[in-house]
């Protein structure tokens, strides 16, 4: 697990609409580096969630991969081998990511089994639960998904990502449905893991507040293209693309006292 850079080159995804192929992601180059947070932003329908899936070599049903190479430290890899070992994911609706009939312990055991380390369950589980801020590991381990709130499940997703030991985390709108308190906790948790574990994070969001809070670099998507890539401070100071200006315009309208 020494990879430092996860990247995708020339990612192209298309879907069929009325029998005609429509290209939804049109040749994207994107990289995530360990110890850094890259934000992928854009309006809904710009293709950012698809790109996030494409980085793990996944495509939703009905979507075809026309091109794109995933690389670890510059070396081409078979994308299908990434999920779990190299890349962990956190999604907007964590509930759908859990098996409703398995307890948290069973989910953790499954994750460790992928790593070939199921024996370490009793030692590692309390450790990662504490790390993500889920108290009383014994109690949490016995819970089923329906017994947990959205915020708890989101933390559990991150705990599982830690158990998997994956160096990269792809987070697709991880806090969109959460209230501000839980959102703040999750964002600072991710930030802390980047600092302490050197996690490399790609966070997909439409909220420039999340970007301001967490990101080091920003890639702006519009209609299947990346139209701008910049360090976060530069993007906020001087956005070059219309898409970035539109997102920042909406964002700033929410802070009348700062941008009067």
């Amino acid at each position: 697990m020494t990879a430092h850079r996860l990247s995708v080159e020339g990612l192209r995804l298309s879907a069929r609409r009325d029998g005609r192929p429509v290209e939804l992601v049109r040749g994207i180059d994107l990289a995530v580096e360990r110890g850094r947070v890259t934000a992928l932003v854009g309006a809904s329908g710009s293709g950012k969630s698809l790109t996030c899936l494409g980085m793990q070599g996944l495509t939703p049903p009905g979507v075809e991969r026309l091109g794109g190479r995933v690389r670890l430290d510059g070396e081409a890899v078979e994308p299908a081998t990434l999920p779990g070992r190299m890349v962990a994911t956190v999604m907007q609706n964590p509930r759908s990511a859990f098996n409703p009939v398995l307890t948290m312990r069973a989910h953790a055991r499954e994750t460790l089994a992928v790593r070939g380390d199921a024996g370490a369950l009793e030692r590692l589980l309390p450790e990662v639960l504490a790390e993500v801020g889920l108290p009383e590991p014994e109690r949490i381990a016995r819970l089923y998904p329906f017994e947990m709130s959205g915020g708890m499940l989101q933390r559990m997703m991150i705990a599982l990502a830690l158990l998997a030991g994956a160096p990269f985390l792809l987070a697709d709108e991880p806090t969109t449905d959460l209230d501000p308190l839980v959102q703040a906790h999750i964002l600072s948790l991710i930030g802390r893991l980047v600092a302490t574990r050197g996690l490399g994070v790609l966070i997909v969001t439409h909220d420039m507040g999340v970007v301001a809070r967490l990101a080091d670099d920003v890639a702006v998507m519009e209609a299947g293209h990346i139209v701008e890539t910049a360090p976060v401070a530069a993007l906020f100071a001087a956005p070059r693309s219309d898409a970035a200006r539109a997102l920042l315009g909406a964002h700033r309208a929410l802070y009348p006292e700062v941008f009067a």
Partner: protein
Amino acid sequence: MSVLVQEDGLSVARRRLRPRRTTLAGLTLVGVIALAALAAPLLPWDPEAVDLLARLEGPSAAHWLGTDHLGRDLLARLLHGASVSLGAVAVIIALILTLGIGIGGLSGFLGGRTDRIVMRFCDGFLTVPTFVLAMFMVGVLGTGLTNVVLAIALSHWAWYARIVRGMVLSLRERDFVAAAIVSGASRPRVFAEHILPGVLAQLVVLATLDIGHMILHVAGLSFLGLGVTPPTPEWGVMINDAREFIWTQPMLMLWPGLMILLTVMGFNLLGDGLRDRLDPTLAGDDH
């Protein structure tokens, strides 16, 4: 955003409108049998005309499928049997749906104490097996198709009522019902416009899948001598009559058996197709 690919509604609708081959087969089977049931009274042969000189004959120009042990025309009896079976099942389904939707729907919609009482009442009915109830009713009221129909309906409606109640309970909590109430719809209108159509679509599917089962019940009870009594042509009765001749004239038993098989299969295939068409949430991945 979790919106990945939104297939536009039109192409989905078009694909769903195109029926599968199995559905067409089911529709054809049911159509042909229903047509036979309707046409039976118009045919020149009398299904109850006894001709002791022409007993147990094989197929001939006069009797296309031959005759039974009393010299009655087998084809005529099979076709008339279709109208008896389908007629009985139609009445059963109508009774079950009316009771199920009426009682289950109200119970779920009103909720509270009414709901609890009605559901205990349903549980009572659910514990009585069809055959036991049928024997009890026949014992009290005498044999006959009417009693068999009543027995089957009474032992099945509670199951439907429970299903309808469950659907109503889940639909009632949906936001579009709240939106309808806020839009000023009265409770009966909310029920009729927003809840009932959703329930009906799923229920038609279930009922179609259950028709085969009902046909077997009618035939089974008639076979036992509880239902349709001998001169009337009915498939179960015909199989019972044919038992003595199973070695000499096996076709006497095979034909009504085949009719039951085809009818049950037809309704099941049709039900599967309807399920996929009307209620994609129940559909399997088998296409």
